[in-house]
């Protein structure tokens, strides 16, 4: 049984959040990683994760970046 990596995009839906989502999906596909994307848009949930600047990226519950749009290659290295 393959395990899907849980990728979370934290942000309220601004253009940069959307761009980060696109990059994450492309990165996972190019890396051949089974994944699921969750968009976390609830500010309360975002702050509960300690994040004060969006967009942010979390993989398997670990916040990997805050306040920037990582490139596809950068995200591949995190998967």
């Amino acid at each position, binding site marked *: 049984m393959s395990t899907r990596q849980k990728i979370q995009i934290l942000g309220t839906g*601004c253009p*940069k959040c959307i761009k980060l989502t696109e990059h994450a999906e492309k990165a996972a596909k190019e890396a051949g990683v089974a994944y699921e994307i969750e968009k976390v848009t609830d*500010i309360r949930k975002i*702050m509960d994760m*300690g994040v*004060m*600047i969006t967009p942010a990226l*979390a993989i398997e519950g*670990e916040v990997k970046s805050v*306040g920037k749009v990582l490139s596809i290659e950068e995200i591949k290295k995190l998967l």
Partner: protein
Amino acid sequence: MSKKEASLTTENDTCCGAESKAVILGCSGGSNVGQIANNLMIELDKSGVGNAYCLAGVGAGLSGFVETAKAARTIVIDGCPVACGKKVFKNYGITPTQYFVVTEMGIEKNHVFEDLREEMAQALSYIMEKI
């Protein structure tokens, strides 16, 4: 939406870090100056300088807190030269954007918590001149 929720940096103000507010971390230690550091953090939040933030979260190594501390403009306020806040940051290779120590504001460290109003006013006046 509560005032606190609205303070997250999002699309409606400076989404994605452009001109984000500072995050402010006070040491909150077990002395008058530790509590003054904590109170300063709250007063600076109230006055709109930045958002009060959780030094314990960074110290605990919680990823969201550590990554936010790396990405944000940060104001760290320690109570005394033991500098726990600064050292927490150093553990993660972070240098605060602005750094203050309450004992350097003419306030002596002690263990008296009864009435900190005068010392608090002195410290707030000091810090507001520097920010």
